[in-house]
């Protein structure tokens, strides 16, 4: 089985990293029979809380155990406590109390991840960027897709995810602040690519594989103009070799939909919570094209 490992990144917050990771993962598992692992790397633990009830989550990750925090804490403390089988959560609990989408797995985060950045620099490169790889490499092969839901920054945990991923996916809200941020992000990843592909025998190739537009609204032409600017920026960055040629603006755009926001309070991906809403339809079509884009047809 060839696993696709993707990091959902953007150093802006609230742009839909978590929403895209969670909802594309759930759609792949539920409607395309894929085995998918979501790895939550954000101390805010949003994808964990989207897929788990708060009490269930709190109990599971009590004291930072059985969470992605433990992976980094082990590395800092030189311990080996993290146990994948015990940490991974399989399926989501629906209102009946029964588990649905057993093919969707989650490695939850815990708030203790906040402490990681302060101490992680006690470790040296390249070890510091291979912490996730060391802990997860033997487990990823069991999945069709592995998604890293990253925090809104490009610090060490995100870098770990970028280094372990085949590509990065950048969720994007169409406005100028996102546009300027995107350029910085693309340049940063190009720099990592230049730095690390040079070192002999290194197969890692940090790159942006796709951009997803989220929170899209059709009113007026504000968003159409902003998308046009994004498309032209993508073309320019490609021309200058900052982005690679296969980067794609994935279709369709995810429209703003209150049901998506509401599904977080129900702790269910929107395809389970409200399969008929426009948000679920957009994620469904996007997932379809996502599969085609990453050449992972059944």
């Amino acid at each position, binding site marked *: 089985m060839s696993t696709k490992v993707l990091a959902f990144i953007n150093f802006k917050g609230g742009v839909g990293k978590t929403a895209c990771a969670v909802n594309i993962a759930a759609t792949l598992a539920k409607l395309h029979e894929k085995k998918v692992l979501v790895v939550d790397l954000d101390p805010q633990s949003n994808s964990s809380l989207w897929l788990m009830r708060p009490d269930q989550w709190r109990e599971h990750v009590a004291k930072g155990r059985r969470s992605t925090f433990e992976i980094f804490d082990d590395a800092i403390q030189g311990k080996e406590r993290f146990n994948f089988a015990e940490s991974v959560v399989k399926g989501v609990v629906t209102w009946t109390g*029964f*588990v649905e989408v057993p093919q969707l797995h989650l490695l939850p985060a815990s708030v203790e991840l906040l402490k990681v950045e302060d101490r992680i620099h006690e470790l040296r490169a390249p070890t510091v960027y291979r912490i996730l790889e060391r802990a997860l490499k033997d487990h990823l092969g069991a999945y069709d897709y592995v998604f890293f839901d990253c925090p809104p920054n490009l610090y060490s945990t995100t870098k770990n995810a970028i280094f372990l991923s085949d590509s990065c996916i950048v969720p994007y809200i169409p406005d100028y602040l996102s546009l300027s941020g995107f350029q910085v992000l693309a340049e940063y990843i190009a720099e990592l690519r230049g730095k690390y592909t040079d070192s002999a025998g290194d197969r890692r190739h940090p790159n942006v594989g796709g951009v997803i537009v989220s929170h899209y609204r059709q009113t007026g*032409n504000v968003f159409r103009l902003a998308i*046009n*600017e994004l498309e032209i920026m993508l073309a320019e960055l490609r021309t200058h070799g900052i982005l690679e040629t296969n980067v794609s603006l994935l279709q369709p755009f995810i429209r703003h939909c209150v049901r998506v926001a509401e599904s977080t309070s129900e702790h269910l991906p929107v*395809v389970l919570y409200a399969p008929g809403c426009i948000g679920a339809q957009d994620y469904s*079509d996007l997932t*379809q094209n996502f599969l085609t884009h990453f050449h992972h047809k059944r």
Partner: protein
Amino acid sequence: MNYQELASKLLHTAERVQKHAHKLEGDTINKSAVRLAADVDRFEEILSGFLASRKSGELFLETLLRSPAAKKYVTLELLRKALRETCSKRLKSEELGGAKREFIEAVHASERAEPAVKYLKHAFAEAAYVPPAGKDKAALQHEFLQLGRLSDEDYATTIAKRTFGELRRLAGTNGIRFTDKTTKPHLIKSIRRYARRLAANLPT
């Protein structure tokens, strides 16, 4: 809970009851045992019905027909075609809800769940597909950026050479809204405004 856990739970209880069966007695546990037996009977009945009526392919077909893509793309016409091509049958229902039920039953009767799933999946994928933008669009976007980088005088001379039709295509492709009443001078002003904004927002 999942069904694996349910199975383990039942096995665990069954083993304990079997081991201690000879010494279990008294109203409290007797009553609870009768209730449990009745619940198990009811569950067995539902389970049997479930297993008799659906194979995994059909279950997935039902999931597909309740999916977001189904809500968007499943029409009477699509079901009619799907049924004809996968089961060589004619759809009778004239209303979507009924047609979905009829479709599932017909597929079940002909044991054609697999091709039916394949047919629907393919139809959904086709419907969701967005063809990549052509060279035309890329060229018009590039031209738009170049216009934004021109000085006022150069812009005025360059734009004057364009026909109204060309300007409308340039504006439309680049997300600028206009109506049938929009005049040429107005369009030239709009294009200038947004092309300049673009040039300023993009790195040089």
